[in-house]
């Protein structure tokens, strides 16, 4: 350990040694932000859990359009991922890296820009998401100006981090640092390439990818956000704080090397397992599954190195609540990373996908692994950062038990709910008829489970509040001036050479020379050289991440036969575009999928399964990941009554007794901004959707004409009159269009004037044909 000396007694440094201090102030800031945002994010989680028990908690009938489930759900996920886990990760990185590298952070200024910039991003997310400003892609909802801020802050962080590596006084990088490097590199790549959008105004944009390609990019990002934001940095955290708290050596250096590199390379491939049975090509889905199964052992390598490091310290686990947090956290990591490969097997996924099983899975990981590792770290840091005793030591153990019971009460009923609903959806009676043809009966049966979840989530939140209060009370006991210990270490010297690799113990001889080389390789001591060269190490991580990505991305964007053209699929009308924007803004995608899988249980319920060619103009894709309500991919073929939709928006239980969908009275009352539609059509045209200049120029008139037509139908059905300017009309137009193109009669060259201005397809086949559809820009004129 480095020698300590207080500033007061600081004389000159010993010969050849440099003196330095650590920046713990920024760590204190990140820790405080972790616990504050943790409580906020979990509170929103409890609120949306209540909304699933009773829609009155959406408050929409009380006049609030900002608190519906569709808008708060992304707020919850973004808050717990980027605000709670994000700040915890940064606290861990800033505290441990300085000590593991024996240096202060490269720049105090950059550290502060990182901290304050990140908090500003969180606040802007908390403001924009309830306003319905969203890109609709999960965990990538933030609109483009915030995305730019995220990238800038991340660059600041990266410069600061690699600068710190450059000025380090420890020759070799410890395994925690490897995981931090992987986080910095991979998140930058993932975030940028999934968030490429075409702006259509200051706070509105469209993904540059469409349909199945967008879906692929989203889950390449989404899955690897789990990998490189919720796994690798937390493994880094584990590798520092767990051996520190346990005061035991790490179980296996070799295991660290192998599981690190296999995680970095294999994780990237696994994304398409979120898209089994969908309209992404089956080869991608198969690769996603196979690599997920391969990922099982690399993930368990982390669990083993965590749990086996505790050998010889298990007696302390019984008495030390911090170690308890870590043990349960690592155990949940092991469970989640076994369940992940299991869920990625296609036949299991056929049952689990779109159900609460996924929700239970992520919460086992989020509450158990991410949450408990963060809390364990916070409690370990508390006395060290604030240089005083923890204000309420007994609360730490209390938090552990409340939290653990909370996790169990959350995940067990939600696993049960997922299985129940999945099995009900696919249940046929002996006559081959759906046993539960009404979607709502597969939902209302889950309400008791949802009540238990509210209880479990509330308990977990109570634990987090205990932590927050404890942190604040400890902070209040801090000394007037923090002691800043001065450390001494020798700087790195030039011309360092690694010692030669230890020779193989295998016998000498020409036959076994190869075996001897293999033996030396398998000892993995050569890896020490990379650990001494951060630049080389970083480049290797980059190569791993990028090459694994390209193996799937290149065929995904070049194999045109994977996205068979459908002649009758045409772009949305301007009014339908506006309706789609409302669908995005209200977060409908959080509860409704638009992707019917090729299974009879789905086609009987929702209609013909979805084809890749139907989504070629879908910027962004809106396939969804959870069916809290029914699939809407073909809603246009079965709900052709505007009045039904109108009444359904006014009060969903009116048309669908038992529904837990929030009412949307504001859509019925508020006027649509027709003037903005042109900008949307223009942006989509720029992305390759085959609109003409006239479509852009006349977008508003075209939209008004179609709105009038729908309003007339609504009035004819004895609905309200004079509502052609309302937002609901646009949304109805969109919903009535959904899924109808596939079996549309083949259009004749001169289309009807009402939907004129749309390009008229002249091909003769309504069925998918093998044909060129690739990158968006060259899709026009089929």
């Amino acid at each position: 350990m480095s020698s300590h000396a207080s500033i007061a007694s600081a004389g000159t440094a010993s010969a050849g040694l440099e003196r330095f201090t650590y920046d713990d102030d920024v760590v204190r800031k990140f820790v405080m932000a972790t616990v504050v945002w943790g409580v906020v994010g979990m509170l929103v989680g409890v609120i949306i859990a209540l909304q699933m028990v009773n829609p009155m908690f959406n408050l929409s009938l009380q006049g609030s359009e900002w608190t519906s489930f569709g808008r708060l759900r992304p707020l919850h996920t973004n808050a717990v991922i980027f605000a709670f886990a994000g700040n915890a990760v940064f606290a861990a990185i800033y505290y441990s890296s300085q000590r593991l590298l024996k240096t202060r952070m490269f720049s105090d200024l950059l550290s502060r820009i990182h901290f304050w910039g990140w908090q500003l991003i969180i606040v802007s997310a908390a403001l924009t998401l309830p306003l319905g400003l969203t890109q609709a892609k999960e965990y990538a909802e933030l609109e483009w100006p915030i995305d730019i801020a995220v990238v800038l802050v991340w660059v600041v962080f990266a410069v600061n981090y690699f600068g710190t590596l450059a000025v380090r006084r420890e020759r070799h990088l410890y395994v925690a640092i490897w995981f931090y490097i992987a986080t910095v590199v991979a998140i930058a790549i993932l975030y940028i390439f999934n968030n490429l959008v075409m702006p259509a105004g200051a706070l509105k944009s469209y993904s540059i990818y469409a349909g199945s390609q967008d879906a692929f990019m989203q889950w390449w990002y989404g899955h690897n956000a789990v990998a490189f934001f919720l796994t690798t940095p937390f493994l880094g955290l584990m590798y520092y704080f767990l051996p520190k708290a346990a005061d035991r050596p790490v179980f296996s250096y070799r295991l660290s090397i192998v599981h690190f590199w296999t995680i970095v390379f294999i994780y990237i491939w696994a994304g398409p397992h979120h898209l089994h049975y969908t309209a992404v090509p089956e080869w991608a889905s198969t690769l996603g599954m196979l690599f997920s199964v391969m990922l099982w052992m690399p993930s368990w390598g982390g669990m083993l190195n965590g749990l086996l490091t505790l050998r010889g310290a298990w007696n302390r686990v019984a008495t030390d609540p911090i170690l308890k947090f870590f043990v349960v956290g690592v155990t949940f990591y092991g469970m989640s990373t076994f369940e992940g490969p299991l869920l990625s097997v296609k036949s299991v996924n056929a049952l689990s996908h779109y159900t609460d099983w996924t929700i239970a899975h992520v919460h086992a990981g989020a509450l158990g692994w991410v949450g408990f590792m963060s809390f364990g770290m916070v409690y370990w840091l508390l006395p060290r950062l604030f240089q005083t005793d923890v204000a309420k030591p007994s609360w730490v153990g209390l938090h552990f038990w409340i939290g653990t019971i909370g996790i169990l009460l959350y995940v067990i009923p939600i696993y049960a709910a997922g299985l129940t609903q999945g099995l009900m959806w696919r249940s046929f009676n002996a006559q081959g008829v759906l046993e539960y043809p009404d979607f709502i009966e597969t939902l209302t049966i889950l309400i008791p489970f949802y009540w238990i979840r509210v209880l479990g989530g509330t308990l977990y939140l109570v634990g987090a509040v205990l932590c927050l209060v404890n942190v604040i009370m400890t902070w209040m006991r801090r000394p007037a001036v923090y002691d800043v210990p001065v450390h001494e270490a020798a700087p790195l010297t030039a011309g360092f050479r690694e010692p030669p690799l230890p020779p193989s113990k295998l016998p000498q001889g020409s036959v076994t020379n190869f075996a001897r080389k293999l033996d030396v390789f398998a000892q993995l001591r050569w890896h020490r050289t990379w650990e001494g060269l951060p630049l080389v190490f970083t480049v290797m991580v980059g190569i791993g991440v990028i090459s694994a990505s390209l193996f799937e991305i290149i065929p995904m964007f070049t194999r045109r036969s994977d996205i068979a053209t459908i002649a009758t699929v045409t772009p949305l009308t301007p009014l339908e575009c506006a309706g789609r924007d409302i669908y995005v803004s209200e977060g409908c995608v959080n509860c409704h999928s638009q992707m019917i899988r090729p299974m009879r249980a789905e086609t009987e319920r929702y209609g013909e399964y979805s084809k890749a060619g139907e989504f070629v103009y879908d910027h962004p894709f809106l396939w969804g990941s959870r069916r809290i309500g029914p699939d809407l991919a073909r809603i246009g073929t079965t709900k052709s009554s505007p009045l039904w939709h109108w009444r359904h928006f006014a009060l969903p239980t009116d048309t669908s007794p038992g529904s837990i969908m929030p009412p949307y009275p504001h859509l019925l009352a508020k006027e649509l901004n027709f003037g903005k539609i042109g900008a949307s059509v223009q942006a989509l045209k720029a992305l390759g959707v085959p609109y003409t200049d006239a479509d852009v120029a006349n977008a508003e008139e075209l939209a008004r004409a179609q709105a009038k037509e729908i309003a007339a139908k609504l009035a004819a059905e004895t609905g309200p009159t004079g509502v052609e300017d309302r937002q609901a009309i646009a949304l109805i137009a969109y919903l009535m269009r959904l899924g109808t193109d596939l079996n549309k009669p083949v259009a004749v060259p001169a289309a009807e004037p009402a939907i004129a201005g749309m390009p008229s397809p002249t091909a003769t086949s309504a069925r998918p044909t093998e044909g060129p559809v690739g990158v968006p820009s060259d899709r026009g004129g089929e």
Partner: protein
Amino acid sequence: MANQTPTPTAPREPVLLSSNYDGIREYDNPMPFWWTSIFWLTILAAGPYFFFYHLGVGSSLNDNYEAEVGEYGAILAAQLGDVEADTPTILTLVERPELRMGGAALFKGNCATCHGPEGGGLTGPNLTDDAYINVKTPEDIFRVITNGVPGKGMPEWGKRFSKQQVLLLASYVANLRGTKPGSAKEAQGSVIEPWPKVEAPATPSGSAAPTK
């Protein structure tokens, strides 16, 4: 802190590497044998799986789906035999309980949200009274379900369901006439002649024919 003495419970202390990061030491333990074995197994199994399903004879997801649809088609064909969408068939089909179940399920899943769970009408018209808008005969029910009523909110179910499924549905709907739903919408359209009397086909005893 840095120098760990072997704990008495450990059979033998493994090799401790010389590295020391802020007091953290590392053992040079080998990877567990079961761990490496399972890892290799998952890697080695991947290749054959991919080749079997994507370059070999393994069936695709769509193949499996087509097979599933074919099986159900066979069940329906066996149940219905060679039937036409004529008045006697439509009026009597759902007197057979297994077919009534099919018709009821289709109605519940697709029609109830507009026509009411018991057919009493909501946004769609009441199907239990004697007034009809586009229907004069039972065959018209089959036709309206198949083609929909463009512009009036009734979808074209013929695009969604097989002819046999529409037949089940039409039969179920025809037999809703005269039932007493819990809540009934006012009559729309005009009152039409009662359905013609047809000879009921031989049905299993205790059939669940709807009460008229």
